[in-house]
């Protein structure tokens, strides 16, 4: 595998993109923050509210998945 020539987005022979360090950290913190938020919500608003929050997360996930597979079908046929 050829090493990327700059830390920014770069495409190598296999068509795989490498991301910048800052973006990685941001993504990681997003995930972690979610879990902390979940527990804070339980403490402040109760288990039901936290459950609703997770439900919202699931609905969002399903929406994102549906949109991306529609786009995938358009580009790949």
């Amino acid at each position, binding site marked *: 595998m050829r090493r990327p020539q700059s830390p920014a987005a770069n495409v190598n022979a296999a068509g795989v993109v490498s991301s910048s360090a800052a973006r990685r950290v941001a993504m990681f913190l997003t*995930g972690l923050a979610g879990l902390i938020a979940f527990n804070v919500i339980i*403490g402040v608003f109760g288990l039901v509210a936290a459950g609703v929050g997770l439900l919202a997360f699931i609905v969002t996930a399903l929406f994102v998945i549906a949109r991306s597979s529609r786009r995938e079908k358009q580009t790949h046929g």
Partner: protein
Amino acid sequence: MAELDPALLARVQFAFTVSFHIIFPTMSIGLVWFLVMVEGLWLKTGDLLYQQMYRFWLNIFAMSFAVGVVTGIVLSFEFGLAFAKFSQLAGPVIGPLIGLEVLTSFFLEAGFLGIMLFGTGRVGPRLHFFATCMVAVGTIFSASWILAANSWMQTPDGVAWQDGHFVVTDWWRVVVNPSWTVRLPHMLLAALLTGAFLVSGVSAWYLLRARETEFARRTLSLGMGSACVLIAVQVFVGDLLYGTMLKHQPAKMQAAEGFWERQSASPAPYLWIIVPDQAQQRNLVQLGMPYLGSIWLRHSLDGRVEGLTNTPVDRQPKMAPVFYSFRTMYVIAMAMFTLAVISLWLRWHGRLYSTRWFLRALVTMAPAGIVATLAGWYTAEIGRQPYVIYGLLRTADALSPVPAATLLLTLVTFVCVYTVFGSAFLIFTLRLIRRGPSGLPGHALPAGSLKRALRPAIGGVREYLASRK
């Protein structure tokens, strides 16, 4: 020759066989439901890629299932071999539960597994799908009954003690005991997550090597998509279970959090590293994140956490294994959740299949579900000690009249034979993965010729159905 302790040997032997065993049903449940999803999609769309996915994962599922079955048979007899006293006392309670497991699940799985593995040429695609579904339903029944039995051991209910025997007074309360209703979904979700990350990890490996691209993209999408929904529910169920066990087995959760003092400081930190000294009832080393203990454990900004000294010393489980098992499981859950969120972000930007560091993370996380499940079970079982039936029967009083030397001999034998099972499974699975779905012989011809089993002549489902008319 040092004094061999039969109690310790019996526990080690059972712990070893049951740990090895649980890996395989966990994988099997996850994989079989993935197979149901994939075969269902094949029937609906006629897309041959789904058939390829089905055949590839069926091979790995078949091996996992076989190892699960044979190591499971061992367990149904090992109650008597290692813990005869427990069997005599608890038999009337857990015996019928496991009996129903055999009747409603093992026979169901076994009956339809043959058709699933060998019946493609003999039954139509719809009956074959039905067979896959029946095996999958069987795994749910199996988990339900065995979790009922184990949950009864954790939170016993519905029995009375009469003349030195347990007598069941209320079967509903035996089965629907205080912890079963939460532990069952927790275990099922764990198994499904194991499958999701397993298939995602393998797909990520292919994508990193620019191999089997179509197969890998579709599998990864299904795997991580499922994982997003599953981990969200699991986080919720896990929190529910935590509250349940705090109420019914406070000693376990006290050990799991690592505090010794009756009431921790306020606000309480969340401990990550401890070196506990059980004899002195304190931690020699204690490192944690401030405030997070109160937030995560008491759901408030200043709540105090109860320590293990709230439990009398002769009823305390060992803190170190319970603490670290629990932390392991929780960290993996966090990692799964994080990866799920990241997968959604990448999906939104169309970079799910091409972000190299993410794919590498998925490959590392392929066995994550297995590790988390084992860690969770160690928390559950070691945390229940010194009881085998919580509050009612101590493990030390539940043994078999078998000499320590015999136990040692069979322990060594079990380890050797199970190593054969485990190595063969790993070698063949890795070989299948390396060969990839394109190099698939399906279920290899017993005569040894590795013929490609994907017969283009079969085509899609619609053509097949049309040709049968």
